[in-house]
């Protein structure tokens, strides 16, 4: 496998905006002149289940799926989803984790427990981690909906794409109305790492 392929895995809960974040990332890579492949799950999994999106770019990319232990960056919009998909990350990879807990229904109905030691587990799982409050940051910027782009801003620090490619990608991916908010969300996220 070519060394120069970059793999990113973005995870979260259905409805958190993982798919938009992966679209922006794929666009930014494309604008930077790379071949890009992405994969995402539709259908059943989008009803509040765990959602995974994968993006790979480089001079030549075959598989759209990221192999275990090869991702340069893992971005998680929910804490335990970060743990669930931790093994995608390369040993020296960067984890960007939103400090948010979304309680699964299995916990609410008493069939499972939400771990109480999430922070120490995260530390054990990710030697290189940015732990941030993307939801709060997004809210302070005007809308909690932009948490995905705050996270993406932080994720971008683990990648080597030029900043104008990111901006162009955001402009191309979000509606006019939300453009400024998302550009700001991205820049803020970028400064958090």
């Amino acid at each position, binding site marked *: 496998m070519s060394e120069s392929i970059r793999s990113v895995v973005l995870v979260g809960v259905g409805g958190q905006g993982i798919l938009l974040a992966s679209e922006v990332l794929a666009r930014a890579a494309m604008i930077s002149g790379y071949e890009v492949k*992405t994969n995402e799950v539709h*259908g059943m999994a989008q009803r509040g289940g765990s959602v995974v999106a994968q993006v790979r770019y480089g001079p030549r*990319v075959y598989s759209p799926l990221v192999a275990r232990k090869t991702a340069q960056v893992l971005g998680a919009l929910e804490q335990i989803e970060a743990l669930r998909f931790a093994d995608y990350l390369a040993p020296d990879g960067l984890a960007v984790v939103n400090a948010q807990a979304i309680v699964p229904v299995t916990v609410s109905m*008493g069939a499972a427990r939400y771990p109480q030691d999430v922070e120490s587990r995260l530390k*054990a799982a990710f030697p290189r981690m940015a732990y941030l409050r993307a939801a709060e940051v997004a809210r302070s910027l005007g809308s909690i909906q932009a948490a995905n782009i705050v996270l993406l801003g932080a994720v971008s620090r683990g990648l080597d794409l030029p900043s104008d490619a990111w901006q162009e990608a955001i402009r191309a991916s979000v509606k006019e109305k939300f453009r400024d908010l998302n550009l700001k969300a991205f820049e803020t996220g970028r400064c958090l790492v």
Partner: protein
Amino acid sequence: MKHLMSGNEAIARGAYEAGVTVGAGYPGTPSTEILERLAKYGPEVYCEWSPNEKVAFEVAAGASLAGARSIVTMKHVGLNVAADPLMTLSYITVEGGFVACVADDPGMHSSQNEQDTRNYARFAKVPLFEPSDSQEASDFLKLAMEISEKYRTPAILRSTTRVSHSRSLVGWGERAVPPKVGLVKNPSRFVPIPVWGRPMRQRLEERLALLKKEAEASPANRLEWGDRKLGIITASIAYQYVREVWPEASILKLGFSYPFPDGLIREFASGVERILVVEELDSILEEHVRSLGIPVAGREFVPGIGELSTDRLQASRARFEGREPVMDEPMPYARDLPPRPPVLCPGCPHRGVFYALGKHDVVVTGDIGCYSLGAFKPLDRMDSILCMGAGVSMAHGLEKAGEPRRVVGVVGDSTFFHSGITGLVDIAYNRGQSTIIVLDNRTTAMTGHQDHPGTGKTLSGEKTRALSIEEIGRACGIERVLTVDPYDIEETSLAIAGEIEARAPSLIVSRAPCPLRERRRVGGLRQINQEECKGCKLCLKLACPAIELQDDFPEINPLFCAGCGVCQQVCPAGAISEEARK
């Protein structure tokens, strides 16, 4: 400039460039976006959601008979519904190019089974094309269209979840000029009554032989010579994984994969020392290559259940080379993570119906849609799911078998139009007594909210007549037809009680639009008064994602609450109320 497109979008692009003027289909993950995208190319391409895949297939076949190029789209199980026209269209032949775009779901991400559509190509004796990325999805659609028109055969373009829902770069071309339309009368060609049908059967085999030659020479099948020690025969998305797992190997990559290009397979086999077949799902290629007298390895190393991936193939490679595959121990930090299965959205109208059903001792035969989620705990109110429409007919079967409890069938609105109506006719005709509940959320929700015959809108957004489920029910001979508001649990429960008591068939239409599609709250936010809450956790039985258990007491997360008020009706302590507006 190239464009980043999903496989499905690329299939639509290919269809547009191929000069397709008619597209029909029924939504089904992972195929849905093909037609949604094609419809966006505007009035040059007529697109429709048909009530089911059989109808869609026949619409496209009719268009082709008139000379138009057409496609029909569906998921793998949809082709079972459309198998009837497929099997004979290959006899009567097509005029304008005709391609059935069928998306398989290895790994069963959103499906009830893992059937392999490639079997249908052999079964119906039609050519099969298998893209491995978006560029090929577009190119192969055009190639399939060309071959279809040249040999007057229907063709199948088979995608999979990972081809359909992966994005990669696609170059765009010009749109071909669509052929002239006008049916040329020729009954001995289009009417397969036995006297004409038997010669058709002959011609079908002759055509298959010609198609085999075509496949041998097709640019869609290619030899990639590498190290001659190992040759891998592969197709579809598996090719992409093989390139990463065996970068040094020689590869025969099949894109026009049926009829099998035997000459090419033999040439490849004679150029390498050992052969491994890497294919997802059934062992179709492997068995065929072996039938040519060529020794191959395959299924003993490559899993045939579930989808493949680079990770799984790394393990296959290890086993193939006599090494133990590296198995990762689950890390301590990932131990006992609570599962996060899909759930009905906050405010989903189905929740109230399942909760109400839970109050009655009935058997519930279910169906395919968001409401399949009602089978999970704690709602746990669905006893079976088979296929589209089976919720209706299986209820009747259970009842006729003498099931001691009363039987209720549930079916969605789109599913009702798809294949629920015939089951209803059966109940009325054969003196059944089942109660059928149509969960009418005014959309085809699970696949991403498509319109259907009951919504009053077409795929291209035009206004049309909205068919009434109640009127259809009455016309089918069901006399007891009533409509309930699923957000009113008492009303819904009383209606169910009344109908299961009545020894007569009945239809209950539970009507409320899907809030996820409407993108607005059903009502005001609810909150739990912690002073009054007794901690009985009854509200948790609703499996509403907005109600979270915090330190043994439920709380409503205002970010998620859709304000449907169902929890308020369930709470025996009266602790849940509408939040005062700030």
